[in-house]
């Protein structure tokens, strides 16, 4: 095999490809910005939205580049007037079935939703803007039935009026999370994302990991916790960090407006998680800003009631308790469990304190899973 056999012609430019790569992947690497709505690089290519169609010389019809493997010598056009016209028509059809398009004020981009709904929620609106999609063409029935109060879980809003049936949620649930909690009911225009027996998510095998929310390209699945913060003023800002809960080390973006945390989103490029989180990492961040959160130590008085105290007083009290237990019952009467929310350095300090300080190995951490 000569080197030359491992190239394709992309819009006339000869470019190399790797074995097994799809035309879409090659196009992405060469910054062709081929549009898509059903594609998530972490998932098996599905070929639903057809926006990524490209022309391949020798084939009568355009092909979906996401499901077409590159082959040596292939001549591909990613952006012709004909393709762009098909893409615009497809986007106008998609916009026509969505409540967001119908409700968009005159002149607004169809499909616009609040970015707090989820990581990928701007994809439809971004494409609608790029292709100058009219929200008025192809008017007709809307698809999907939102589940408002019918699914009263605290985490995931199932706003299916905005659903465009790309099935990224179903596929991420099966392929990445392994939950198989959701699937596709009915067919054609009446397609609806469902659970077993159309039950609530809380009665299904859903683990509320939130991956469906974060891959949804329209905001039809939305982060309910974040949506409480829609009216907080300020620009959204993202700060990359590591999830503090367990030892996996999932990369997350803490989303803030001003000084206030308004959401957590997974980092799609996080090496440990590739966009995955669990229910805690995704949704359990209220405690950070909660009014009941302890900000000063407390000690218990003679009367049994807790009262605020200084750190010196509190630490003296704790030290006294350790000394008493050690003196009366020995080293093995002491057992430490480090909090899963504590950073690694703190966890290290705890085990050092117990092992070196008292001479026992009775240590543990709450996030053993």
């Amino acid at each position: 095999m000569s080197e030359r056999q491992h190239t394709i012609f992309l819009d006339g430019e000869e470019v190399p490809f790797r074995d097994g790569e799809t035309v879409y992947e090659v196009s992405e690497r060469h910054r062709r910005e081929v549009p898509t709505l059903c594609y998530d690089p972490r998932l098996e290519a599905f070929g639903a939205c057809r926006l990524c169609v490209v022309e391949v010389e020798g084939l009568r019809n355009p092909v979906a580049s996401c499901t077409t493997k590159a082959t040596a010598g292939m001549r591909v056009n990613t952006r012709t007037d004909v393709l762009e016209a098909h893409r615009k028509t497809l986007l106008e059809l998609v916009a026509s079935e969505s409540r967001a398009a119908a409700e968009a004020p005159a002149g607004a981009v169809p499909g616009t939703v609040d970015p707090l709904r989820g990581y990928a929620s701007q994809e439809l609106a971004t494409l609608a803007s790029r292709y100058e999609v009219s929200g008025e063409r192809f008017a007709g029935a809307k698809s999907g039935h939102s589940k408002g109060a019918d699914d009263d879980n605290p985490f995931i809003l199932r706003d299916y009026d905005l659903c465009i049936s790309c099935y990224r949620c179903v596929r991420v649930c099966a392929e990445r999370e392994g939950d198989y909690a959701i699937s596709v009911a009915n067919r054609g225009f009446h397609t609806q994302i469902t659970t077993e027996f159309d039950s609530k998510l809380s009665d299904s095998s859903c683990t509320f990991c939130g991956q469906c929310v974060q891959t949804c390209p329209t905001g039809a699945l939305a982060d309910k916790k974040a949506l409480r913060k829609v009216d907080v003023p300020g620009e959204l800002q993202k700060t990359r960090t590591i999830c503090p809960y367990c030892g996996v080390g999932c990369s997350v973006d803490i989303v803030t407006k001003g000084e206030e945390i308004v959401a957590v989103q997974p980092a799609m490029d996080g090496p440990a998680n590739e966009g995955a989180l669990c229910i805690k990492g995704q949704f359990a961040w209220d405690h950070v800003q909660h009014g009941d959160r302890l900000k000063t130590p407390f000690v218990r008085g003679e009367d049994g009631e807790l009262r605020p105290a200084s750190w010196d007083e509190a630490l003296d009290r704790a030290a006294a308790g350790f000394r008493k237990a050690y003196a009366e019952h020995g080293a093995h009467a002491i057992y430490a469990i480090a909090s899963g929310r504590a950073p690694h350095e703190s966890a290290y300090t705890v085990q050092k304190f117990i092992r070196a300080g008292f001479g026992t190995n009775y240590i543990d951490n709450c996030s053993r899973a």
Partner: protein
Amino acid sequence: MSRTVATDAEILARWKEEPAPLLPLLHAFHDRDGFLSESSIRGVAETLRIPLADLYGTITFYHFFRTFPPGKAAPRVCDGPVCKTRGADALLAALEKDGATPMPCAGRCDEPVPVLIGDTQFVGAADGSLVERETPRPAPRPDGGEECVFAHVRDPARRGIDGYLATVGYAGLRRAFCEWTPERTLEEIDASGLAGRGGAGFPTGRKWRAVAEAAGGPKTIVCNADEGEPGCFKDRVLMDHDPHATLEGMAIAARATGATRGFIYLRYEYPHTQAILENAIAEAEAHGYLGADVLGSGQEFRVYVRRGAGAYICGEETSLLNSLEGKHPFPRNRPPFPVTHGFEDTPTAVNNVETLCSVGPIVARGADWYRGLGYRGEGHGDHAGTKLVSLSGDVQRPGNYEVPIGLPLGTLIHDWAGGPREGRTVQAVTMAGLSGGFLAGDALDVTLDEPSIRAHGSFLGAAGIMVFDDSRNMVEVAAQAMSFFAHESCGKCFPCRIGTQRLTERLTGAAGPADLDAWTAEVADIGRTMKATSACGLGMAAPLVAESLVRRFASQVAAHVGEAGERGGERA
């Protein structure tokens, strides 16, 4: 008379270890209870290790499966395009008291209106009366010419194996297994020019050769008997009156490819056909034509019947395979193709009933004989073989006809089928059932072969032809056709899922621009994008109905858009 009702455990145990078990398991519960209860769905999911949500979603895909009573006991009335003109709506109203609901074309357009109650298909009349009758046999070929697949179908004895053997049945199979090498069979099929008679027209010999040469196994032959195209009822007559011909074709395919198992994927609407096929399989096994060691050749070939549950898309071969495997019946992305990655990812040949029925005679009598059956009329050259045409609608003698490929359409309609009703003229015909859209005017001069019909922007396909005379409103016919495609669109790809809906709304007048130019532009844009970008043949073909309507019946369209606009008032 008391009958023992099978328990859940017995049903699950009966099918658990069978190949392709999901559909028969669901049917077993559906038959027993009349619907699929939550507990039976849970039992199936657990037994077959299918996630519950997945199984629940898949069940909702099939329109005959019900998850609540009365379910199966309620009558289903065909409201296909021909039945609509034969009192389907009145019949539906007459049966409404029994919970009747409509079903898409059920494949009896030569004798409307079919009604399905439980596992019995009746022929209904507008007054609500129902009679049970066998599938009509085709009339003798009007010009007396020689036939291939219909040569013996009118012989009442042909359904049983003795009658089949008495009319040179299984001669082809015997030759393929006892005289010829698989290569020799492949060469003969290649030479015959036989191509897929289900509509796609892929050369049968090439398909089999690809399976024969593919690595891996066990290899599989699938007979596509999901005859769902409206206006097509040809496979039904073959299976009902000549079931061994299908089995013989499958076995020859197995010999040529090395396949050891076969499935007949039968559409739900032909319940009686399942019993006929299963009886024929038992007879063939008893005579050694199927089973563990076919005719002492050392090759195993077993055939299983699997019944669909109401989904046109399952006639698309990759949807069919997903359905057989118990998966959600979306079409698969290709490549890879079924010839290398078919049923359970093994090399698989999927062939239509008519194609398979042609195989036995071709092997028994030779490729030259088969090629010679093509039309040899004046000015017509090289047409090989025959094609069954299901002719229905406004003609005097509707029915199935085996035509020499290349026969002029006019000869079929006027000379063979008696032409339109007295005092009427042919306004339009559909092609490929509905998928080919309408031919009218000059285009009615086509000959029945793909090149001729494709030159008019249509295709012969599975060769259902519905005739509409000058009393019919073609916009209404087109609206019914498009609502069928919308009903049957699987929902996987955007252009088909949304496009069929929007075209239906524009043809019924439910939505769409009131201005004719805007209306036409929308319909054209949707159609163009559907044809170019849809993921499978359904979405690519559906717009032909709208496109051919606009092209050939511009004044009816203009009147429709005007009227709809007046009705819609302010509608944009």
